[in-house]
C-alpha cells in the first residue's frame, strides 16, 4: 500500500532492502512516511530535494539519524513477526539456515539506512564532513578492522572444526580466540571513545565546533557515535552468543558434526557484524585524510 508524500521539502533518509522507504519532513520533527511508496514518488521526492530551499531549511540539523533507527526498527519488528508466524505455521525449529538468512537480512537495513543517510549529508556538506572526520583516530579504526576480519577467520575455523571433528577441543579453542578478539575490538573502541571525550567531540554532551567544521561537523559526529555504538552493541551480542555456545550447547554436547546449525547461525551473525565494519571503516576513518 502506498501513501502520497508531501508536496515539498521532503528528504529520503533511509532505504530498506525491500523497497520500504522512510521519508521525513525536513524539520526532522515528524515522521511523515514509513510505508512502501511507489518508485515515481521517490523520484519526485528526490527531485523536490534538489529544488532551492529556504535558508532555514538549508541549515544542518544535528539529529536526523533517529529516522534511520525508526525505519530499521520497523523492519526488524515486521520480520520478527513473520519469522514467528512461519515457525508457528510450518513448525520449523530454530535455528535453521533460513532463519540465519532472515537474521542477516533483518539487520542489513539497520546499518544500510544509516549509511544512506550519511551519504546524503556527506554530499551536502563535503568540506565540513572532511574536517570533522580528521578528529577520528585512524590507527584505532584500522587496528579494529584487522581484529574483526581475523575474528571472522577464527569463527570459520571453529565452524569447520565443529563440522569435521567429533572432538570439541579444536572448536572450543577457535571459539575462545574469536571471543577474545571480539573483546579486544571493544577495548580498542573504548579507548577511542575515551580519546574522543578528551577531544570534546561528543555531540549534545560536550561538543566543541572546530574551525572549518561548521555546525555540520556535529552531524558527522552524530553518525560516528550512533553507527559505532550500534555496531559495538551488535558485537557485544555476538560475543554473548559465542559464550552461550561455549558454556551452553557445546558443554552439553549439543554441537556435533551431524548438527552444528546453531553455531553456523552465530557465525553468520558474526560475519554480518564484520561486514558492517567493512563499510563503516571508509565512511568514518578515511574521509578528509588527503
Amino acid at each position, binding site marked *: 500500500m502506498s501513501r502520497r508524500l508531501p508536496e515539498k521539502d521532503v528528504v529520503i533518509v533511509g532505504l530498506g532492502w525491500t523497497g520500504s522507504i522512510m521519508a521525513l519532513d525536513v524539520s526532522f520533527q515528524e515522521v511523515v512516511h514509513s510505508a512502501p511508496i511507489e518508485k515515481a514518488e521517490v523520484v519526485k521526492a528526490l527531485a523536490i530535494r534538489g529544488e532551492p530551499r529556504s535558508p532555514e531549511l538549508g541549515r544542518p540539523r544535528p539529529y536526523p539519524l533517529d529516522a534511520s533507527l525508526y525505519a530499521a526498527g520497523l523492519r526488524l519488528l515486521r520480520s520478527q513477526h513473520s519469522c514467528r508466524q512461519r515457525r508457528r505455521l510450518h513448525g520449523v525449529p530454530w535455528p535453521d539456515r533460513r532463519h540465519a538468512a532472515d537474521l542477516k537480512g533483518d539487520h542489513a537495513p539497520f546499518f544500510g539506512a544509516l549509511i544512506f543517510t550519511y551519504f546524503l549529508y556527506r554530499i551536502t556538506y563535503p568540506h565540513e564532513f572532511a574536517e570533522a572526520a580528521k578528529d577520528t583516530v585512524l590507527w584505532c579504526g584500522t587496528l579494529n578492522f584487522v581484529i574483526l576480519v581475523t575474528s571472522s577467520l577464527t569463527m570459520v575455523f571453529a565452524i569447520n572444526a565443529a563440522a569435521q571433528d567429533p572432538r570439541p577441543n579444536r572448536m572450543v579453542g577457535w571459539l575462545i580466540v574469536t571471543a577474545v578478539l571480539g573483546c579486544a575490538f571493544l577495548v580498542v573502541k573504548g579507548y577511542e571513545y575515551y580519546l574522543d571525550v578528551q577531544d570534546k567531540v561528543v555531540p549534545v554532551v560536550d561538543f566543541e565546533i572546530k574551525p572549518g567544521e561548521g555546525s555540520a561537523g556535529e552531524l558527522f559526529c552524530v553518525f560516528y557515535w550512533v553507527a559505532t555504538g550500534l555496531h559495538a552493541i551488535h558485537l557485544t551480542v555476538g560475543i554473548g552468543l559465542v559464550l552461550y555456545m561455549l558454556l551452553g550447547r557445546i558443554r552439553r554436547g549439543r554441537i556435533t558434526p551431524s548438527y552444528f546449525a546453531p553455531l553456523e547461525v552465530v557465525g*553468520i551473525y558474526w560475519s554480518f557484524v564484520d561486514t558492517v565494519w567493512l563499510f563503516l571503516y*571508509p565512511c568514518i576513518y578515511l574521509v578528509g585524510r588527503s
Partner: protein
Amino acid sequence: MMIWPEVDARRARALPFVIAWIVILLTAGVSAWSAFLGLGIWAPVVQFGIAAIQNRVR
C-alpha cells in the same frame, strides 16, 4: 568469512579462507592508502568499491 549457507563446512579446507583473509587485509591497505591520494570525489567511490570487493571475497 565465506560462511554463506552454500559453503559446506564438512568439506571446507582452511587455505581458501586464509587466502581470502590476506586479500581482505591487503585491499584494506589499498583503501587506506587511497584516502591520502587526494582523489576528491572519487575517493569514496574507490573505497566503497573496495569494500564491496572485500564483501564479495568473504
